[in-house]
């Protein structure tokens, strides 16, 4: 890495080439993925070299196996989930003190929107793996039906997924088939509920007055500031 | 001293000796704690150490003692109460017993025993029992592991310690510590007797082995697995608080002082300084001070190493003792014996 005196034009050209080759590579990878998974691959999305794929829940484990064994994605980055339901709580979940002064309107239920690579259900698994030798990475998603929150475990392929799946289990209530032991990792054993679900209220807000939702104050303009100093002067 | 003491009754002599023993142990321990633990180490670690209690923090130890005395003496519920409570006293007793054989001058001694060094080595092992008692009696897993480690370690290092002394005994032809000092004072190195013959010169291997084994006996770094604070909290001392912890603490430093005194007697000429007549009555006054100076020097080495080196692992420690120190000490004995006969 010795680019001490490189000029901008060369840099920009190189970056554009790299981006192009990255895009081509991503297309090729997606093609191989759809060959391997068939209908299991639901949707995909590429953006600035980043690759998102959304697979059927049943293809979740096959995806991991394919990426790890066939494609050399040996590095396991993280596994988590997203609850796409818009939070049903608004300002009415703020503390009693705040609400007494300024009673909030109950929040209108908003439609569920999902992000890149789409989604059909409320809960979506989210994981990322890398290939450190070629610098490729892929973000995988899988829809989980709300009435049957279970997915095949990645632990047999990526042992590092163990703790991440335990976290997803306790935070979202997702069961992982084939996981060696789903038990609490952060929360105490007797904890009830799944805190990262959107319908789990953040009670800290309820019990403690909030110092201010929006702390953005406009910068004092020069003439305003002048007024303030004049007013403050004895 | 003999002259004065012989005119006093038994109980008077005994009380003088008890007071002298207490002073010798506590003063030495206190000085070592202040000079080495508080100050030398602080300077090594780019800090000042205690500065508030007394001039340059010299009364800090008093403050510490006051603090420890005020603390609650906690005994774990499942502990073996008697064993737990007695353990620190056993350790401290071994320190006091060690002191008994130490000569401080031509007449300034507690007992002049013909088996002096033998007695010293024997009573130094008593502290192992105290440590094992502490480890077992605490009913704590950390303490138990620490106690077991300590026992294995102390037993392993008794041997090189003892074997290192044998070289000195062969050369001095006596086991009486007083006579070992005199042998060094009156000795000569191949006919050159200006500084006598401190055995550190002829018995340097023995001295090195003795210091290493002593470091291990004192459970100081790099041999401090029994109290390894990053692994076992403080090993066998984990459950102790207040006065009993203080006893362990004082005992640690007092034992360091007494062991260094034995090393000074064996290898550095004890209370003797070259150039004076060893029979001079002056040595009854300056002898203890000379010995004390040599003790401070040797403990400086001990604590220098302690605060510089990392810690060995238990198996590495045993390997060092059995595979390196013991054979070396045996070779030293053989060489000394052969030279003794030949020269």
């Amino acid at each position, binding site marked *: 890495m010795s680019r001490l005196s490189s000029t901008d034009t060369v840099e920009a050209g190189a970056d554009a080439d790299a981006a192009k080759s990255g895009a081509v590579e991503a297309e090729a990878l997606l093609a191989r993925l759809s060959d391997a998974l068939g209908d299991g691959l639901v949707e995909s999305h590429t953006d600035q070299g980043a690759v998102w794929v959304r697979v059927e829940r049943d293809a979740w484990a096959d995806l991991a196996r394919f990426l790890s064994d066939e494609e050399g994605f*040996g590095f396991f980055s993280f596994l988590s989930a997203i609850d796409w339901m818009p939070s049903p709580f608004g300002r009415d979940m703020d503390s009693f003190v705040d609400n007494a002064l300024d009673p909030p309107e109950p929040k209108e239920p908003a439609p569920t929107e999902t*992000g890149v690579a789409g989604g059909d259900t409320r809960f979506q698994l989210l994981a990322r793996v890398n290939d450190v030798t070629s610098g490729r990475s892929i973000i995988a998603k899988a829809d989980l039906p709300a009435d049957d929150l279970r997915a095949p475990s990645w632990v047999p392929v*990526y042992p590092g997924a163990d703790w991440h799946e335990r976290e997803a289990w306790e*935070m979202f209530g997702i069961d992982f088939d084939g996981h060696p032991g789903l038990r*609490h990792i952060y929360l*105490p054993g007797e904890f009830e509920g799944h805190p990262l679900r959107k319908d789990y209220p953040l009670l800290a807000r309820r019990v403690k007055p909030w110092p201010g939702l929006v702390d953005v104050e406009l910068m004092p303009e020069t003439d305003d500031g002048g007024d303030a100093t004049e007013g403050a002067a004895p | 001293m003999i002259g004065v003491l012989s005119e006093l009754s038994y109980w008077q002599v005994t009380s003088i000796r008890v007071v002298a023993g207490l002073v010798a142990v506590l003063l030495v321990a206190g000085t070592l704690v202040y000079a080495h633990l508080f100050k030398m180490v602080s300077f090594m670690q780019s800090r000042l150490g205690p500065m508030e209690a007394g001039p340059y923090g010299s009364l800090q130890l008093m403050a510490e003692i006051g603090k420890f005395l005020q603390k609650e003496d906690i005994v774990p519920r499942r502990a073996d109460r008697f064993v737990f409570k007695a353990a620190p006293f056993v350790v401290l007793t071994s320190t006091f017993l060690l002191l008994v054989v130490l000569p401080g001058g031509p007449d300034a001694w507690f007992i002049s025993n013909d088996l002096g060094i033998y007695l010293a080595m024997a009573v130094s092992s008593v502290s192992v029992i105290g440590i094992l008692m502490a480890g077992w009696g605490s009913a704590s897993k950390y303490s138990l592991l620490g106690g077991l480690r300590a026992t294995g370690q102390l037993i392993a290092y008794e041997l090189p310690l003892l074997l290192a002394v044998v070289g000195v005994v062969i050369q001095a032809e006596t086991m009486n510590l007083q006579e070992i000092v005199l042998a060094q004072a009156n000795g000569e190195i191949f006919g050159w007797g200006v500084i006598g013959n401190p055995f550190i010169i002829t018995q340097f291997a023995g001295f090195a082995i003795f210091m290493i084994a002593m470091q291990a006996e004192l459970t100081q770094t790099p041999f401090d697995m029994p109290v390894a604070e990053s692994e076992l909290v403080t090993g066998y001392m984990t459950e102790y608080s207040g006065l009993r912890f203080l006893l362990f603490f004082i005992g640690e430093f007092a034992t360091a002082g007494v062991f260094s005194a034995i090393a000074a007697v064996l290898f550095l000429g004890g209370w003797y300084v070259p150039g004076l007549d060893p029979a001079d009555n002056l040595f009854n006054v300056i002898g203890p001070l000379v010995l004390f100076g040599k003790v401070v020097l040797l403990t400086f080495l001990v604590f220098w190493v302690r605060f510089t080196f*990392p810690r*060995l692992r238990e198996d590495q420690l045993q390997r060092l003792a059995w595979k390196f120190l013991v054979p070396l000490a045996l070779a030293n004995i053989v060489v000394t014996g052969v030279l003794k006969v030949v020269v």
Partner: protein
Amino acid sequence: MTVTERQQLSYIAAQAADARVNLEIETEGMTLNIGPQHPATHGTLRIVAKLDGEQVVAAEPVMGYMHRGYEKLAEVRTYPQVTTLINRIDWLGSFANEVPFILAAERLMEVEAPPRAQWIRTVLFELSRIANITLFLGDMAVQVGAITPVFFAFRDREHVLNQIEAATGGRFHPNFDRIGGLKDDLPAGWVAETRQAMRKIRAFCDEIEELVEGNEIFQARTRGIGVIPPDVGLSYGLTGANIRASGVDWDVRRDSPCGLVHDQVDWKVWTHPDGDSFARFWVRLQETREATKIVDQLLDGIPSGPIMAKVPVIIKVPAGEAYVETENPLGVMGYYVVSKGDLNPFRVKIRSASFSNVSITPWLLRGVYVPDIITILGSLYFILGDIDR
């Protein structure tokens, strides 16, 4: 990615230990509970170790004593407020925590910080790396029983913290990074003082090299201990110096730079083939030196210009998803930010380095001795806030 002889030997030893444990007549094992309050676990990590004598049969880390639920809290904070929270994830290198989140938000908003802000950001990023890892270098010595080097570490880390404080106003939690740039410009004279601090850090590295790394006892305690083969490390998600010490030549700063200007300076990614505790220490020591060189070069070339891009006063991030990761002091840290166009992020998944780094411990601690638990944990180098979030 070759496995060295030492790795193989130690792996065989661990396997043999496993086999022996299984074959031996069943003796009553002992369960040792290390932590949550224990001098070796800087923080409140608890390790339940089943022992056979002094040998570990099985070890299971238990965490959550410091779980603060940042992923949930971030959903009710505005984007600028989130940096205050995530500062507390890896509290020794706080500024580095802010950077990937801000970069992710910037990517969603399609704004880019002006060059001067990017350079200063990178300088502060590397300074927090130095502040973090100097403490590791001293702490590792404490883990193996030498208590003096940690004082040197505290002493010299101070020089870096002073510089961070001078620039940002906060020693530990700068909260200085803003979407679109930085809060303030550098104070006058800061560059020269930082250079001086870098010299002191390099002297500190030399000191540690002599005092700790070259020490025979330290080497005896760390060489061949806790060997992680590269493929195992990768599948557990190990990052940073932990994986580079296993010979994987992967550094996000070099391989996928985004928003930081590491590609503008001349530096080297250090790797070590052994994968043991010593290698992890060695790589971190070299990285600290390398970071001082990066800072020195960056200070030479800070471009002039504004430090804030044009961003609205009230920040609403357009809908979208972005994942940005950077090479933080503890390893790769990334934020998966989902925005729905509101003041708040809709979902923030924090990929913290220590969480994955520590997840290898049940595999790694099997068959080692109790003293090696401590060296291995120390060499993996985790911050509790980074595990528990």
